[in-house]
């Protein structure tokens, strides 16, 4: 059973804590992303798991065995893990098949077994035609696939990936997301994936753990993270967000600073009264220029924000509006291109209380 448990994991560089009291349980066969801005400690966490760093406090367990703690340190080569690196780390002095075969040197395999395994994985990443090339003769995407095959050929219990797609161009990146997810479905290897790209995390993961300043902020399925962010940081980091602040009465009514009162949804640990922030996703807001329609929505329980279109950017599939509210502030709204409101038009923005989520500051 390759469950990985991080327990109060802490690592400090000099005076700066890189990872602090991190608790995370990754179950067998699960794909978990560590997501966060640069410097949030996600790569440090991954290198702690790989055994390249030793924690200052806390421990890492595989199953029930401790592999890292301030006093115990199983070296990386004895952890039955594989890792894919940001730089791919494909060895330039070895051919594609030598690269892929490398990990098998340390396993006792018969010659025919060995060759068959290498070929199987080269075919899997569609590089069998390139097996005698050197990495310098490959494109970035192909090098990436060499790294992938090299990591998988040893049939690791745990696969670690450190921003594996960040050096690829946008199209290839999208393609590789699906590729990685497909391989995961096929082999069901427990995977820990580090990225700063929320779309990547959404596309690949069973579960996302959001990190900020070395601490875990929220862990949950992509849907949970996106629809019920616990903090303002999560709301703003994952997807686009309008943040409104106001005074919560203890129930579900929020008095905004400018006198408007709206209804909100409340989730879990967020404060039940006092000054709070509310997250509204731009694409969850309806726009209408028709006053009667706005009244209708209000009767259906929607919060209505009257305002004027101050700016719009046409993206083809969507239109990104900035609405200058009559009360105060600006609201970003993503609208369908079918209906287009020109700059200066008086509009009503409508948001359902379900989509107005109270979040913790920070």
């Amino acid at each position, binding site marked *: 059973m390759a469950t990985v448990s991080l327990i109060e994991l802490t690592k400090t560089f000099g005076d700066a804590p890189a990872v602090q009291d991190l608790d995370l349980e990754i179950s067998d066969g699960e794909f978990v992303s560590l997501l966060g801005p640069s410097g949030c400690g996600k790569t440090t966490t991954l290198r702690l798991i790989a055994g390249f760093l030793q924690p200052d406090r806390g421990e890492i367990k595989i199953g029930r065995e401790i592999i890292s703690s301030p006093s115990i340190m199983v*070296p990386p*080569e004895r952890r039955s*893990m594989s890792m894919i690196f940001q730089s791919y780390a494909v060895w330039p002095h070895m051919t594609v098949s030598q690269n892929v075969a*490398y990990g098998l040197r340390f396993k006792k395999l018969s010659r025919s077994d060995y060759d068959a395994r290498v070929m199987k994985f080269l075919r899997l990443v569609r590089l069998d035609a390139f097996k005698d090339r050197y990495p310098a003769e490959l494109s970035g995407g192909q090098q990436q696939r060499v790294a992938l095959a090299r990591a998988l050929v040893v049939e690791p219990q745990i696969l670690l990936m450190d921003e594996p797609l960040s050096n690829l161009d946008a199209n290839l990146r999208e393609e590789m997301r699906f590729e990685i997810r497909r391989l995961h479905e096929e082999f069901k290897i427990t995977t820990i994936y580090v990225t700063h790209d929320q779309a990547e995390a959404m596309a690949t993961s069973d579960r996302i753990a959001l990190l900020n300043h070395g601490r875990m902020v929220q862990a949950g399925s992509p849907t949970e993270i996106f629809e019920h962010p616990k903090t303002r940081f999560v709301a703003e980091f994952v997807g686009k967000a309008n943040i409104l602040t106001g005074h919560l009465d203890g129930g579900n009514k929020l008095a905004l600073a400018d006198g408007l009162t709206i209804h909100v949804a409340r989730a879990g640990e967020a404060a039940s009264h006092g000054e709070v922030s509310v997250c509204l996703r731009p694409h969850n807001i309806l726009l209408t220029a028709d006053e009667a329609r706005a009244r209708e929505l209000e009767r259906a329980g929607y919060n209505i924000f009257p305002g004027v279109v101050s700016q719009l950017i046409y993206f083809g599939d969507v239109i990104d509006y900035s609405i200058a509210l009559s009360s105060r502030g600006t609201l970003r709204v993503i609208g369908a291109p079918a209906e287009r409101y020109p700059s200066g038009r008086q509009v009503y923005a409508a948001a359902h209380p379900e989509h107005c989520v109270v979040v913790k500051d920070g």
Partner: protein
Amino acid sequence: MAAKVGTIGQTPAGLRLKHWDPSLPVWIGASALLVMLMALPLGAIFTTSLKDEAGVTLSKYAEVFTNRAFLSAIWNTLIVSFCVGLIAVMTGGLLGWLVTRTDLPWKNSVRALVMASFVTPPFLGAFAWTLLAGPNAGALNKLYRTLTGHEDALFNIFSMPGLIFVMALYSFPFVFSMIANVCELIASDLEDAAVILGANKWTTARTITLPLALPALLGGFIVAFLHSLSLFGAPAILGLPAGLHTITTQIWTLFQYPPRLDLAAAFSVPLLLATMLLIALQKKFLGRRGFSTISGKGGEKRLVRLGWARIPIFVVVLLVLSCSVFLPYWILLKAAFSKAWAMPFEWDNFTVQNFYYTLFQYSDTQRAVINTFELGILTATAGTLLATLIAYVTNRHVLRGARFLSFFALAPLVIPGVVLAVGLFIVYSQPPLILYGSVWILFVAFLTKEMPIGYSQAESTFKSIHPELEDASRILGANRLTALQHITAPLARSGLIAAWCFIFIGVIRELSAAILLFTPNSKVISVVIFDLKEEGQVGAISVLGILLLVVSFVIILSVQRLSGREVVSGREQPS
């Protein structure tokens, strides 16, 4: 589960042993050796300079700094080094700019010739210049007399200006490579940005180009100053006949009979402190707003058109290079192949006897050639090994406090050869370890002195090998030493061969430490050249000098081919 792990509750010490890294003794051993190599001689200098029969004393310093001869040596050194630094900055800076940013003709040849001046040992250049501009028999003076009918000499190389001139010839390449590097990094668009805001050519040069190059110019001045501060050969060959002492020759005199080690030590300390201070200053100039701002992605570089001045400027460049390369090499070749070097070079004056005599008949020179190349190979091999281990430790942070190791590895940069020799002599001429009298003390001296070049070469090699390449091997099952063997070593190979070659070249041309540490059966080529000069054996000296130069050039060219880059300026060749 493959990982075999312990349970909680074991003592930390026991666990350390259990998961003990088998490569650890290698790292610790290399580090300890390095620290010892550096700390022993320096420690010996300080203690000897502060100690007499009665105990701790400052009397040695008092004796040194009240003696007029010593004070005038310091004064001479300062004047010479300052002038050399100034001339080197002007010449090297100008040449560096000309070959990188203008349409000067034959730029690659100019670069190659500057490299040749760089490779020429200054003592050899100084010797060649005694043949060229000695007051009586000097070739140029004879030419002058023939042409004008005058009786007196045009140049007297045995003088302060002569000494400054020759030392500057072999110091300017340092500034050249620094300036050439910077000029290549200043993209034209940085200057264009100023032009588009309304600055004219000269305002742009004054406000953009010069300030960007200024740290390198100041740094270059300090490097040239330091270089001449620590030179022994040139001042001994050109200064001593005129009664001019510098600090290094004065220390050497203190080693002559009766040796005054205590005074030599006390006299070495200020030289040591001065170089330390200058290196710190240089770091500051180059470090602060340094090159990071300049190292934009190259950008397009347009060449300045020299117009009508193109040919006259080229002639001036040629003149400088004649002084540092063409004339000295010509006179050395002439002397090596002549029966009488001062006679015109005609058929009945031609001979190869000098070569035969030097390499096969005269046991002193023969022994020196063997010693030199033996020491070169030994030191280069041991030095590369040690430098590689240390660079690995500092680059991959294998040990705690690894940063201090790089300080030790680079420390010899601030130790002039003569000073190092004083320290080593004190340490190794008494029990427990007596090395003085054998070639081994030279080995230790060269190993110490060449450590910075070996270390920085190895360090930059490891820097260019992404640590993740090694991590990738670890996680797939290789331990640290296996990963080194499979991944890092093959990738580092050409860089480390280059380190070997640099150390080798450094060793075979070393004079300033060898001159204090040699004994009759441990002479090396440089020392023999110095000795033969006293005997007036011009032919033999020239043969040895040419041998040194040929070997150096062959090695440098092969390194260049190997690593595909220009060695002297460290410039990446466009691929």
